[in-house]
């Protein structure tokens, strides 16, 4: 129990510290690296509450794909982040005001919160019971049966996104040399090499 509590505080504090560093680091590459650290700690927190599937997905998707993509963008685009941050303090008062208004609104909504009876019932008896199946198994079970329609629909959405990206950006430009495997295989030594007799003691 004590180990669990200790690891919780460790993960939580490192996550918060890393998150603070993300916005305060001067070098954007450092920011992204701190972001990765924050993700890892969040994954650790998920493991602690027994949601190992989400923890692994978080690492695979956010660290493996999103953060690396960020890193590429940051390194390849020549953006001067210090310039972008120039007017940061200047907008603080008005930004803070908007933040306070939003907070007040959220509190007002929160004040009127009534937990729906249906939701309450669902929380009391999670289906299937947590101690009988692993959560990967449980998610798979409802995703491929109860929610198969939405699963397939989401697949269609991703397919359309892929087609769209290709339609809008793929151009066949003339003069681009592409690999033609059949040409490479069909090439014979006679086409590629020329043997010349070189007289000893003279240049070609």
């Amino acid at each position, binding site marked *: 129990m004590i180990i669990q509590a200790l690891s919780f505080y460790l993960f939580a504090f490192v996550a918060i510290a890393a998150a603070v560093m993300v916005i305060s680091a001067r070098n954007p590459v450092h920011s992204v690296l701190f972001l990765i650290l924050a993700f890892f700690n969040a994954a650790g927190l998920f493991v602690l509450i027994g949601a190992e599937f989400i923890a692994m997905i978080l690492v695979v998707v956010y660290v493996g794909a999103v953060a690396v993509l960020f890193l590429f963008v940051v390194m390849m685009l020549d953006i001067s982040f210090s310039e972008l941050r120039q007017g940061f303090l200047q907008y603080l008062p008005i930004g803070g005001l908007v933040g306070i208004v939003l907070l007040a609104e959220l509190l007002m909504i929160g004040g009127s919160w*009534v937990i729906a009876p*249906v*939701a309450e019932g669902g929380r009391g008896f999670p289906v299937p019971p947590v101690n009988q199946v692993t959560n990967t198994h449980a998610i798979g079970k409802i995703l491929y049966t109860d929610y198969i*329609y939405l699963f397939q*629909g989401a697949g*269609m959405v991703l397919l359309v996104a892929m*087609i769209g990206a290709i*339609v809008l950006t793929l151009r066949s430009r003339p003069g681009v040399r592409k690999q033609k495997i059949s040409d490479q295989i069909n090439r014979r030594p006679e086409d590629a090499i020329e043997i010349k007799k070189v007289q000893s003691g003279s240049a070609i």
Partner: protein
Amino acid sequence: MSMNQLMPALPEIVLACTCMTLLMLGVFRGDSSTRSVSWISVLALVVVGVVLTSVQSGRMVAFGGQFIVDDFGHFMKWLIIIGSSLAIIMSINFNEQERIARFEYPVLILFATLGMFMMVSANDLISLYVGLELQSLALYVVAAFRRDSLKSSEAGLKYFVLGALSSGMLLYGCSLIYGFAGTTSFEGLATLFKGLGGTGPSVGLVVGLVFLIAGLAFKISAVPFHMWTPDVYEGAPTPVTAFFAVAPKIAAIALFIRVLTGPFGVLIAEWQQVIILISIASMVLGALAAIWQDNIKRLLAYSSIGHMGYALIGLAAGTEAGVRGILVYMAIYLAMNVGTFCCVLAMRRTGRMVEGISDLAGLSRNQPMLALALAILMFSMAGIPPLAGFFGKLYIFLAAIESGLYALAIVGVLASVIGAYYYLRIIKVMYFDEPAEAFDRTISGEVKVILVGMTLFVTFFIIRPDIIVGGAGTAARMLLAG
């Protein structure tokens, strides 16, 4: 899950499989197959229509209640099939002339159609969102389909950014509703609201509902969420604009009707005022802003904003007569818009598209038949009696008066009188202005057939209105009974 449980979704399954098959065909055969892929897509849509009719009618749910089919859905899906297939046919020659013929175009239209089917059949907040996203994503791409043109890319980008914003609002609304109701299924929500009794819904639910309405209002381009419409209509290639003007609007208004009269039907007191406001604003802005337009596609954009305002009157009434009015209105709206866009496609001078209203001058002398067809369509849009457009408005206004929404009906009539000005101006330019240079006669046979068909429908609707009105009546009765 046995095969029988999948039967209600058979049209969607056929459509999805066709999309993927055609995609493969196009990828392997290259852009030279564009013409055949387009015609096969049209054929596939017809087949889907046949399957749709053969699927046993009546109210059925599938996939654990996330998917619903009923006569209302059938009616709307038929309209969507007509809109999509006509948009593909209209594009075939146009895309070749503009050198943007690529096989992805019909495939994307089919995917958008699939998304619209899912929207019409949504019976759950999540399936609503997935269908909407599938549709929108395909539409963003076809809006920017002429990717070398700055205007088309701008249209696509603008549509994408604003569409993503509206999807965000819609999702926010859905999550609030889910948070306060504890369920996403429409049946569950309906039961919950009926059980509320006199206490009324909590504030969070109403806020969620308003966000949901805002997200949907964006999709039908109702004021105040209309800003994207004129730019996107102007920038997108003309057949795409024709498609935007009909099919997505029909799907979104179907969704609007299903959500508001279904699960939220008992909360009519909460949403009626919002719909009335949106409706009045759309009608007035559609009528006034179009007066100053010189570009015919922008004018049609404002005209469609206005038309959506009229359709929303029927929703504000919230009765069976109102829903029937909307269905009739959307069918007639489809015919008028497709016909008008066929005329816009004919506006081509020395190989380039022209879009100014003044370019129409003298059309009555150069191409009298085309001018006559456009004149009939404009008279119908303005709602001049024996034509179809008049009946669309008539059913809507009757429903409003039956429900006691006199002010709304009066505003509607006034707005349509103002709107008549700019429709009649087009006729005046065609018949009475100094003739301009003639258009090229490159309009293809298919487009001519569509134009003649739509014009005949609009002209002779009065002879057998019962075909459409009867079907709409059955659909509306079924929706509100269930």
